[in-house]
């Protein structure tokens, strides 16, 4: 009898992704879906989607979802969780959404120890609007709104979200991962799973930052984009576990 070695997770609908070639959103969607399947919580999951490239994620996930205004996903997720404490509630957000316009919402959700999980996709640029500078764009990075490169003397250094949120007691699990190779994908999935387990245990807020590529707006091939991320993003945004409920840092 043939054994199924690789199948679509039940938590993903049979709908083709709209994402650009080489974009990591598809991989990250799949990892989230696999984790929700494995934890057997699809029946009580509510996902809150952002404004950005993943704005249509509600078309892809096969469980209840709400589409939030730009940056407000942690507040919307708070509303859902406070009505249904037994639901598994997560926000899925990009860097413009979470680290710029939604900075207050993510900081206070973490500070409250809101029992939600956040999947934060950091590709150092605004993708959907066509490649503008993000709060996570790197120094001297050329974007459509930093055509001469990000000038740190004018706009400051990029925000390190995991490090910033690690100062808050309510944040119980914080990790930064990447999906640039199979080994890192396995680690990313483990981190996402841990972040949902922290919610299921009722411990508090959990966030996983996933470094991601944007070949289209970086102006690179998918392969070049992975190389650029490894060379430029990983040194500034080191991978690792910043906080766990056990208190182990790194």
């Amino acid at each position, binding site marked *: 009898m043939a054994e199924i070695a690789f199948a679509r997770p039940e938590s993903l609908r049979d709908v083709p992704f709209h994402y650009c070639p080489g974009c990591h959103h598809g991989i990250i969607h799949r990892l989230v879906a696999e984790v929700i399947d494995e934890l057997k919580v699809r029946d009580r999951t509510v996902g809150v989607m952002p404004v950005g490239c993943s704005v249509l994620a509600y078309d892809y996930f096969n469980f209840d*979802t709400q589409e939030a205004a730009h940056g*407000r996903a942690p*507040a919307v997720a*708070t*509303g*859902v969780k406070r009505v*249904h404490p037994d639901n598994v509630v997560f926000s899925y957000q990009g860097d413009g959404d979470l680290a710029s316009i939604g900075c207050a919402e993510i900081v206070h959700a973490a500070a409250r120890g809101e029992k939600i999980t956040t999947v934060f996709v950091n590709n150092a640029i605004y993708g959907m609007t066509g490649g503008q500078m993000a709060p996570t764009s790197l120094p001297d990075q050329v974007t459509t709104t930093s055509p001469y490169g990000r000038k740190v003397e004018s706009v400051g250094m990029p925000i390190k979200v995991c490090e910033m949120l690690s100062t808050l007691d309510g944040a119980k699990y914080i990790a930064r991962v990447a999906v640039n190779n199979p080994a890192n994908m396995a680690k990313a999935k483990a981190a996402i799973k841990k972040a949902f387990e922290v919610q299921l245990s009722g411990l508090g807020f959990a966030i996983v930052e996933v470094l991601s590529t944007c070949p289209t707006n970086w102006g690179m091939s998918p392969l070049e984009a992975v190389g650029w991320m490894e060379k430029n993003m990983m040194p500034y945004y080191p991978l690792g576990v910043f906080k766990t409920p056990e208190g182990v840092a790194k």
Partner: protein
Amino acid sequence: MAEKILMKGNEAIGEAAVVAGCRHYFGYPITPQSELIEYMAKRMPQVNGVFLQAESEVAAINMVYGAAGAGARVMTSSSSPGISLKQEGISYIAGAELPCVIVNMARGGPGLGSIQPGQCDYFQATKGGGHGDYNNIVLVPNSVQELVDCTVLAFELADKYRNPVMILGDGALGQMMEPVAFPDKAAEAPAKPWATTGLKGRKEPNVINSLHIQAPDLEKHNYHLQMKYKTIKQNERRWEEYRTEDAELVLVAYGITARVVQSAVDMARAVGLKVGLFRPITAWPFPYEELGRLAKTAKGFMAVELSAGQMVEDVRLSVVGSKPVYFYGRTGGMICTPKEVFGIVKKIMLGEEEK
């Protein structure tokens, strides 16, 4: 209906919300409605409800979005500058057709304005407020008892039409104390099969959303919203008339101003001037037809507002040019007196006031 108790307007709204079955409240402190958020902080835990002080009005209204989308009877409250901050969320709530109650105990504006009573948020409340073609149902009570009645009604209407309902009060109504009686309970919330509760065996996921990326889809959605608004306009106009039967001059006022104007009407009647009061209780839908009907008998109309002239535009739309429409307003938190309004009435009836 229980016995009457003396209660402050802001607190009465809070208790009425509890009676109406509201068990989720998200807010942010601002004068002159802070007694309401404080009342909810104390009261919600007593009824196993959720009180959460949000980090901002923006966050509070988005928590309301999440909670309403999850099926709860939910409320937030603020005052003018805070309501401006909530407009983004209110537009999304209207677009996603979520039932909720938003209280605005309005103060003077623009900007930080003042903390005294104002009615200068009428345009914002009744003509949309945020972006897009949408309407809130807007209730404009004029007493502490009516704050109670309108709060209960607001939850019922919100659920009935899946629409945000705003209670547009003012700093005076929120701060004053009057005897009130509470109903035993409100109409039960209807089933909400659209809510994101988790699938719980349901086959098709529920999605709470205001995005329709394909233009024809969005237009279809807008037509649907407009049909709903049409139904609301037909069914939910509320108003009250006082001594209008033979009135030659009809004064139009709502909220705290209507209380002042009612006294002015009595002063005018005492000297034989035929004056009446038309008081909208729903500012949206505005009772255009009912006010317009009075144009058959009245010789003129005057809107009295704590603004530079906002509702007066709806009065003109009611009368459609058939009779003169005058306006008298005070701004910046100044409240007109009955004597002051009576003085204007005398001028108009002697033909001295400019239109």
